[in-house]
């Protein structure tokens, strides 16, 4: 199958293209299977500082520092990482730092691990309580439009925007090997 023509397979490339379009220069992430393709594209782009984090909350400080220094930044994380960030998100609200977070969901569609469910079940509500605008993506053909809109809102309006990528979009996690 040709990756370049199949949206179901190349949605991470569409996110990357949006990052390029709006000039994102720093991306913080904790390694994640759902974001692996996007992380690979970012690591291989000399124009983007890829910053691998020990915990997601570090990324909030990174975004704030990038904004102070005049660069646009985005964060990639799993739904579990949202819980790690909650106090740090106050920095974004207090100062009006633009922030775009792309979240791969766990604990929902075809989840094999019940330990992922409690945080997954409160991820979107937690983000809203922290002041984020949240947009959920279920289908691959929505990715480009929704991520593009999220980028524009975050960086044109100094807003905090979270794009929630559903577990159904990402695909079932293989847990036997």
């Amino acid at each position, binding site marked *: 199958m040709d990756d370049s023509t199949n949206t179901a397979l190349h949605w991470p490339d569409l996110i990357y293209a949006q990052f390029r379009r709006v000039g994102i220069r720093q991306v913080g992430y904790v390694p994640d299977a759902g974001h692996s393709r996007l992380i690979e594209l970012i690591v291989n782009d000399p124009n983007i500082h890829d*910053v691998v984090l020990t915990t997601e909350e570090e990324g*909030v*400080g990174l975004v*704030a*520092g*990038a904004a102070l*220094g005049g660069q646009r930044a985005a964060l990639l994380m799993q739904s579990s990482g949202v819980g790690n960030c909650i106090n*740090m998100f106050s920095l974004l609200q*207090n100062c009006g730092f633009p922030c775009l977070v792309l979240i791969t969901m766990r604990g929902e569609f075809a989840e094999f691990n019940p330990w992922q469910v409690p945080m997954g079940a409160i991820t979107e509500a937690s983000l809203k309580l922290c002041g984020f605008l949240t947009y959920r993506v279920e289908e691959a053909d929505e990715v480009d439009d929704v991520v593009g809109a999220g980028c524009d809102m975050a960086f044109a309006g100094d807003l905090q925007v979270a794009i929630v990528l559903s577990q159904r979009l990402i695909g079932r996690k293989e847990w036997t090997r």
Partner: protein
Amino acid sequence: MIDRRQFVQGLLFDRKNLLVVSGLGSPTYDVAASGDHPLNFYLWGAMGSAAMIGLGLALAQPGLRVLVLTGDGEALMGLGSLATIGVKRPANLVIVVLDNQHYGETGMQPSHTRAGVDLVAVARACKFAEGLHVSEIEAVNRVRDLVHNGVGPIMVQARISNDAAPRVLPIRDGHALKLRFTEALSKLGD
């Protein structure tokens, strides 16, 4: 042991275009007491984030020097950040920890450094280019030279006295702090 106000005053003397991020609590008051400046970003919360804000800033402005001035408790809360900074190795980033071995804002309970946890050793283990302990005020010029000319990332742990200094409170409006910082930064090139 070092008087914190005297040390910070000396560190920020003739600061040129130095970008400063201060950790919440006493380091923010110390930086304010040394003279308010639009290129000071004072933290009033988000404990544990100071070093990472420094990293984002240092990556965005590789031609300028970035100083993160924070306390032992704040640095301990973001200990993982030192590993993250060690991976990126920004040459223009210096972290100075004002270490009084206590949590001053909450009633002087002892911190982990009081029990001997060594932040310089942690930073070195995290691939920082340089690490330094100082405990005498005479060292301030050497630290100031590292802040302006050293090859980072650099960690300095300054053992300060436990004496509380009078609070000097800078502005608390985060939007105002951000806007005046970015505006002053954009004018540096003029």
